[in-house]
């Protein structure tokens, strides 16, 4: 730990807890609280990674969540940022994006071939000859990309939760803490978050040599602690902003979807680099990065440093570095006028040479380009261009850049805050914040410490007033004043290039220049063409620099210029955070346990899990389904219909409601009887169907399709309110289980179990009775969906298993077996019954589906009636018909959605098809040209393989057209 400083007041490391870890196979020791980056730097390791394109050595650069060239991976995780990730005992990590190892990366030769890979080269090459493209693609894919995901490793669970607060404060620097304290008295529930492991923002690392800021930080934190309504949460990033102050907060193990009533953004600024030859060498870093190393981790960033400054902060850094025992070789100020304050005198007083109006033209690299050996300075002319022939060479092992700031405004921009460039401060500033959103501190262009505190107080007062906890007052924000903190053009050209604007993607100054020359001269186009800002740091270091280049090359000012659109996430987060715990609601009927025990093969039907069929050892799926169909036709079967929508409707206005909602008539439906009901929308399109049962004068029970139950219930609720009807609606879909006992033996099995008289005369076809089955209260109805004598039994969900067990036992001697959805579909197909949404689509009219009989156009009114009265006069474009294939037809079997073709034109499609074990042939329903709907017509069906098969149009129902099976008297 050769670079570790003496213990500092306020440092983040715990020197009593040494931590041992490995990097690139070498063992190192750090302290608890160290990040991988700080611990390695303390151990004298300055090469932490390789750059994306040229594989140049890279070290610590920004040290604030955006060091994208210092990313490491372990056996369990990849792309961990070394500047953020804390070291852990026994941790073993290696750099990403290397071939071989970090030191001897076999791709480092790419640095010498930069001339062959200019900006946009991948758009201009590799596409001819075409046959070689797969080869190129393969090679490029091998080289490109950061880190590798090990899909064999177990998935780590990241908690996703919801959070709530009155005021969210992003950033715990002076403005954020001050805002929080201001809001506390109002009683607001306040959450302060900070992406760093410790609060304080700039107070935690700047100007420590004076001691004042750390003391102030502690005072503020003490005040915060005394406020029970303020919660301070470190290591938490506000990574995305969505409508109505919905903020995505991410930490290592958690993603919180936080709803705040108001948001104060006090997120500070990102320091901006200068552009000069070799500005990426390990040892060249932002001044704030160096200060963080010193003050947070007690690590000496360099021994002999040249400071490149364009603001007062650079001078303060010089004082801090000196205090930390670093030899400040010189301070190079880009400004010709230098620093007009006491700071310059103080710096000079320490014997530090100040070069006004100069720029670092070049950093001199060590032999392996893994260190800084010195810098070459040039003076600047009035146009901020480095003059030739005036070079000064200085020896140093580090460069600290303090040339400007850009607001950390990702959340503000995502919240539609209008940001505009201010030529006074040479940075973007919030001009008009979104409703309920407030900016404070540096992100708001306020730099003086006292002003930041005041700005925070004002923001706090405005936020509490916004949420109505205090009366709106006239908060007087401190003025944005003083000399610019950012230099308007800290960019120097160099014939050898390698003066990087974007270190993520190795975008050099010449790449930007060439892109603009090629016409990509707007920020959005420039980004896509040059990949600028498309790396992990999302342009936080580079966007502003590139924008300055665009303005300069177009001969324009920065006024009115905008950077690219800000979108979530403000910083990269792991895919695991996005995946998190997955909720996929799944419904099961109350008989689910019994189906499982009977070997059901389940299928998804909407969000329901239903038995597709019941497996039988030695039989295929088709054989199982056919056996179930035959059992119903010949003996008796039972199917779970719990998924049916069920709605109880009561009240004096039930009849008017049903008459208006359904196309049929229900006013005269007798008590104890049921009737088919068809529902259309306003355009006459079929939307649902079901059975309407009258239980009493003002009490009905209706069923809907499984998928339509919620929609129908909601529609009825709306209509009851709109039409001001006195109707009580109860969605009973989950309340009642339903099962259909069907087959010739149905009556014999059921009669001993129920107090309802099942005699044909007492309980006719389409009747409904209330009574009990196996002592469970039940509603029994005689319906004909599967075309056999059958009883639909509806009973309370908690009694379903009790009844099912008794029925199954009673039916054993009669051959009772359960049947699944597939058998039910075939049974109803044999009867020619349609299934709404399978045999209809979003445009199907009742006339097309052969449902004319269910439409009573002479009723005074029903929904869709007017549309149907218009379209019924028009010629049909398609019609649903039954068809069959010859008994001896061999495969290939047509499938649902295979097209019906006539004269090369599509005339319809198959909606249902299957092999009928009863009829011994393939039967189905299909839409076709009305001209081909007569019995005996031929349909040409195009199969999946492009071949055609002919099918005969036949009359439906395919089975038992006289409905005699319903009149079985035994």
């Amino acid at each position, binding site marked *: 730990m050769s670079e570790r400083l003496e213990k500092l007041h306020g440092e983040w490391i715990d020197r009593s807890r040494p931590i041992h870890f490995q990097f690139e196979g070498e063992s190192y020791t750090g302290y608890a609280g160290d990040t991988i980056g700080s611990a390695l730097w303390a151990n004298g390791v300055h090469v932490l990674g390789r750059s994306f394109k040229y594989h140049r050595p890279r070290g610590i650069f920004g040290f604030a969540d955006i060091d994208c060239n210092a990313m490491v991976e372990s056996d369990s995780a990849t792309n961990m940022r070394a500047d953020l990730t804390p070291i852990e005992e026994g941790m073993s990590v290696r750099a990403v994006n290397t071939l071989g190892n970090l030191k001897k990366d076999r791709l480092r030769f790419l640095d010498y071939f930069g001339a062959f890979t200019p900006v946009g080269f991948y758009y201009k090459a590799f596409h001819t000859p075409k046959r070689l493209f797969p080869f190129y693609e393969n090679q490029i894919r091998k080289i490109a990309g950061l880190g590798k995901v090990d899909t064999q490793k177990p998935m780590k*669970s990241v*908690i*996703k*939760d*919801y*959070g*709530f607060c009155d005021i969210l404060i992003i950033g715990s620097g002076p403005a954020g803490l001050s805002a929080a304290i201001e809001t506390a008295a109002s009683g607001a529930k306040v959450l302060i978050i900070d992406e760093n492991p410790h609060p304080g923002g700039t107070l935690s690392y700047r100007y420590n040599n004076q001691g004042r800021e750390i003391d102030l930080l502690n005072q503020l934190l003490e005040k915060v602690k005394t406020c029970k309504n303020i919660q301070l949460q470190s290591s938490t990033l506000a990574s995305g902003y969505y409508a109505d102050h919905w903020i995505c907060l991410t930490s290592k193990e958690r993603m919180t*979807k936080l*709803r705040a009533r108001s948001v104060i953004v006090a997120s500070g600024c990102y320091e901006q680099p200068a552009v000069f030859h070799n500005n990426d060498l390990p040892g060249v870093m932002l001044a704030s990065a160096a200060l963080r190393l010193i003050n947070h981790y007690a690590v000496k960033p360099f021994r002999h440093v040249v400071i490149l400054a364009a603001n007062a902060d650079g001078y303060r850094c010089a004082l801090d570095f000196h205090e930390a025992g670093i030899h400040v070789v010189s301070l190079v100020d880009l400004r010709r006028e230098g620093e007009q304050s006491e700071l310059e005198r103080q710096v000079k007083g320490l014997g530090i040479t100040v070069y006004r109006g100069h720029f670092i033209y070049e950093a001199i690299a060590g032999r392996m380009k893994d260190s800084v050996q010195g810098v070459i300075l040039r003076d600047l002319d009035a146009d901020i261009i480095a003059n030739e022939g005036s070079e000064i060479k200085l020896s140093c092992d580090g460069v600290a850049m303090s040339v400007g700031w850009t607001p950390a405004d990702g959340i503000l921009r995502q919240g539609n805050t209008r940001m505009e460039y201010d030529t006074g401060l040479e940075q973007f500033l919030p001009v008009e914040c979104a409703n309920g959103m407030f900016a404070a501190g540096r992100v708001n262009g306020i730099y003086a410490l006292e002003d930041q505190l005041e700005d925070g107080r004002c923001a706090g007062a405005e936020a509490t007033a916004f949420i109505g906890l205090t009366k709106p007052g006239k908060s007087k924000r401190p003025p944005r004043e003083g000399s610019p903190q950012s230099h308007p053009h800290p960019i120097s050209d160099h014939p050898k290039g390698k003066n990087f604007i974007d270190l993520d993607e190795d975008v050099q100054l010449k790449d930007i220049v060439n892109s603009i020359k090629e016409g990509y001269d707007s920020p959005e186009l420039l980004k896509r063409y040059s990949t600028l800002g498309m790396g992990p740091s999302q342009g936080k270091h580079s966007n502003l620099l590139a924008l300055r280049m665009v303005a300069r090359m177009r001969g324009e000012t920065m006024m009115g210029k905008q950077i690219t659109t800000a979108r979530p996430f403000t910083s990269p987060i792991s895919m695991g955070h996005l995946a998190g*715990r997955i*909720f*996929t*609601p*799944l*419904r*099961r*009927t*109350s008989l*689910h*346990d019994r189906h*499982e025990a009977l070997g059901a093969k389940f299928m998804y039907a909407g969000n*329901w899990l239903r038995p597709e069929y019941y497996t039988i050892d030695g039989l295929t799926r088709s054989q199982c389904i056919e056996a179930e169909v035959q059992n119903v036709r010949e003996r008796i079967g039972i199917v779970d219909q*719990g998924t049916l929508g069920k709605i*109880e409707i*009561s*009240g004096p206005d039930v009849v008017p409601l049903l008459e208006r909602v359904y196309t049929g008539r229900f006013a005269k439906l007798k008590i104890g009887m049921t009737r088919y009901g068809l529902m259309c929308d306003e355009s006459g399109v079929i939307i649902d169907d079901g059975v309407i049962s009258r239980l*009493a004068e003002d*009490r009905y029970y209706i069923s809907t399709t499984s998928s339509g139950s919620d929609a129908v219930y909601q529609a009825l609720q709306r209509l009851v309110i709109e039409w001001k009807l006195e109707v*009580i609606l*109860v969605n*009973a*879909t*989950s*309340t*009642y289980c339903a099962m259909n006992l069907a087959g010739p033996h149905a009556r014999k099995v059921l009669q001993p179990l129920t107090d309802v008289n099942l005699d044909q005369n007492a309980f006719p076809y389409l009747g409904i009775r*209330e009574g009990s089955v*196996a*002592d*469970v209260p039940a509603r029994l109805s005689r319906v004909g969906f599967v075309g056999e004598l059958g009883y639909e039994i509806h009973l*309370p*969900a*908690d*009694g*379903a*298993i*009790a*009844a099912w067990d008794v029925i199954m036992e009673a039916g054993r001697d009669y051959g009772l077996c359960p049947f699944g959805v597939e058998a039910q579909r075939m049974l109803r197909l044999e009867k020619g019954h349609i299934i709404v949404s399978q045999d209809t689509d979003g445009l199907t009219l009742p006339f097309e589906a052969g449902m004319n009989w269910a439409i009573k156009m002479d009723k005074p009114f029903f929904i869709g009636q007017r549309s149907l009265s218009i379209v019924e006069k028009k010629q049909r474009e398609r019609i649903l018909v039954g068809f069959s294939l010859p008994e001896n037809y061999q495969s290939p079997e047509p499938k649902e959605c295979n097209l019906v073709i006539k004269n090369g034109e599509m005339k319809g499609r198959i909606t249902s098809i299957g092999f009928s074990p009863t009829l011994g042939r393939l039967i189905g329903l299909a839409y076709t040209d009305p001209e081909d709907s007569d019995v005996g017509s031929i349909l040409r069906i195009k199969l999946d393989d492009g071949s055609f098969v002919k099918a005969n149009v036949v009359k439906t129902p395919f089975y038992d057209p006289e409905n005699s099976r319903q009149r079985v008297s035994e």
Partner: protein
Amino acid sequence: MYKRHSSLKNQFEKQQAEWGNIHAMEVPLHFDSHQSESTSMRDLAICDVSSLPKLGVKGRGAAAWLSGEGIPIPNGIYEWLPFDQGAMIIRLAPDEFFLEDTMGGEWVANLSGRLGRGFDGVYRVERQDTGLLISGKRSHEVLAQTCSYPFDDSEEKVVMTRVALVSCSILPLLLKEVQTFRLWFSSTYGIYLWQSLTEIVEDLGGKTVGVKVYFKNRIYIKVK
């Protein structure tokens, strides 16, 4: 009374539990010692209480009829009141009420019998909800991971919201002086929601407990 089944019964059959019969439904009374479950219920625990009888009453005459039956009527919508040492009534709408009995209580069964299929202006609403109970000082964390409603410790109203994307009624209350959330939802989502919630409860170090640890004293205590 027929033999009732909880939609969750199968979820417990592989666990060691002492079973009991509550209102004709077989339920796990406890999985562990009373002391252990008592500790869990104060820390974090989840329990199936679907066995408690439920009844809905709806219609313009509902309030008057219930009042006539001697049941206290909550003033506001989503407010609730305990009665008969453990039963509860919740007002879901101006003319809609939900009643749930406690272990061993007979009020709801008797009321249900008297209501029958309903009569003019008073309509019966059959309730077959799955009922859960999540309790303990960390019960908030379970809801925070599944529900986007900001529950407040002082809240004493029923909240209609969604838990793990399933529509759910939730009542925060104090049960044996422990922060507790009562959940009611469609039994068709019972297994899904039980599995989702128990996974989170177990991840947080909580446990599944039987009904006995909660209902020994048959008393709900209102927060305020």
